[in-house]
């Protein structure tokens, strides 16, 4: 009986693992089958000369190039805002805050993580309007407001993974540094962070993916269908998730819909490239810190 239940349980775990892999696999295959035929320089650069467009000497009107640049910019900017605040908050919660304060903060971050992105988008829009009315009439929903709103969206992921990674360092390791005369800050820098860096950077990678896929936030805070490459943080911009949403809801023929699949494949490639870059950075930093 025991053996039977063990086997049934094992089969169930195997099946769930297989189903997860199968769903990811079928999604990728579907995307490749639909997206690859529409991939071309024409899709990315439209009628513009690719080389001149890359050097920003020619504007791309009917290609995805501005959306690719806009997506990369908004993702990198939002994670850049969120990383210092998120990691610092995570360190504070793990190492310095009292138990009661920790409970309040954790509850607040859990609520923030569970907040629908459209609500955060609305908040970003409200902030943009407030800034426009009270500070400068040059401020409208733009790349800056989008990236700040996205930073708020991904902040809980970075805070929680940082806190949990530091909390997960065994007490014996934590006590080792302190027992050798390290101050709390020295212990944090020399012992805790090197041991938890891998987990912290996994949170950053998770945040990258979350920022890249979100459409609701950017739709309300600065993205438009045609804007070209943003010239400043206060400019409007284009982004691939919005393009995919726009094309899939407004397409006029099959060919136009297929460009949406091409855009999805490009978005996936950008995310994968950012993941790989973040992984390489993670390995480099972990290696460096261990060598210190």
């Amino acid at each position, binding site marked *: 009986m025991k053996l039977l239940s063990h086997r049934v349980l094992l089969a169930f775990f195997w099946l769930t693992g297989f189903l997860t892999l199968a769903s990811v696999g079928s999604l990728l295959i579907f995307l490749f089958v639909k997206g690859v035929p529409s991939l071309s320089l024409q899709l990315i650069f439209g009628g513009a000369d690719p080389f001149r467009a890359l050097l920003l000497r020619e504007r791309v009107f009917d290609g995805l190039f501005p959306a690719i640049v806009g997506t990369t910019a908004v993702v990198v900017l939002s994670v850049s805002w969120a990383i210092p605040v998120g990691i610092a908050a995570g360190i504070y919660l793990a190492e310095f805050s009292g138990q009661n304060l920790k409970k309040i903060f954790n509850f607040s971050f859990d609520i923030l993580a569970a907040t629908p992105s459209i609500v955060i988008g609305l908040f970003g829009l409200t902030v943009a309007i407030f800034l426009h009315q009270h500070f400068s009439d040059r401020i409208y929903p733009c790349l800056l407001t989008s990236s700040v709103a996205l930073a708020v969206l991904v902040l809980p992921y970075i805070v929680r993974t940082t806190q949990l990674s530091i909390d997960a360092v065994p007490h*014996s390791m934590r006590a080792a540094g302190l*027992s050798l005369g390290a101050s709390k800050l*020295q212990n944090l820098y020399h012992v805790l962070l090197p041991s938890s860096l891998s987990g912290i950077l996994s949170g950053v990678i998770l945040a990258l993916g979350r920022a890249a896929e979100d459409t609701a936030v950017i739709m309300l805070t600065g993205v438009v269908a045609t804007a070209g490459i943003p010239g400043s943080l206060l400019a409007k911009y284009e982004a691939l998730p919005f393009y995919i949403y726009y094309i899939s809801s407004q397409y006029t023929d099959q060919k136009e819909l297929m460009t949406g699949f091409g855009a999805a494949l490009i978005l996936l490639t950008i995310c994968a490239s950012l993941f790989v870059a973040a992984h390489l950075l993670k390995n480099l930093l972990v290696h460096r810190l*261990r060598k210190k």
Partner: protein
Amino acid sequence: MAEDNIKMAIKDLDVYYYERLVLKKVNMVFRNRELTAIVGPSGCGKSTLLMALTRLLDTVPHARVEGSVELRSNDQGWLNVFRLGETDLPSLRRRVGLIFQHPNVLNTSIFKNVAFPLRLLGLSRQEIDSNVRAALIDVFLWDEVRDRLDSPASELSGGQQQRLCLARTLVLQPEILLLDEPTSFLDEDLAGKIENLLIRLKEERTVVVVSHYNDQVLRLSDRVYRLAGNQQESN
């Protein structure tokens, strides 16, 4: 023994985890140039006591202490360990070195594990090199690791890691050395060598050993405290 020979005095020490009393009314004195043994069954709070003496219990959530632990300071006054501020704790832990029962090497090389406390003090590379070498020789580890000082410390065997941790504390030359089962991972031959090292160390400092080997305690110690249940039973 004259009172001015006392290096550390524990008075009516109680330790709680949540509301559970795990150590009750512990009173002990550790004297200079003496080796004191603390014995007792597993779970009676021996390791907890050593953690309390170095204020490392502060890092354990929901642990609380009452009573006092006084350390004789260099100007012959007494320092209440429990009244020290956060910024004074590194200095306390350099003066009162603690070696844990289970080796807890840092995630770095053999050399850097021993050099770590010296780097925190800002010593020169040359001073660090010579101190690390001397400490590794003291714990009979130098010959085993001299050719692989840059290898990860985690690759060492349990016994080697235990000696590495001892070396790492010895480089600081603490006034009081607290050792929690220092020979538990060592074979008989090495255990004997470490015991001889402890006898040598007590000539110039205070040594406190937690042990459950009765013959070891009888061989080494000048004074024995026995903990039973959560209370001090005798000395």
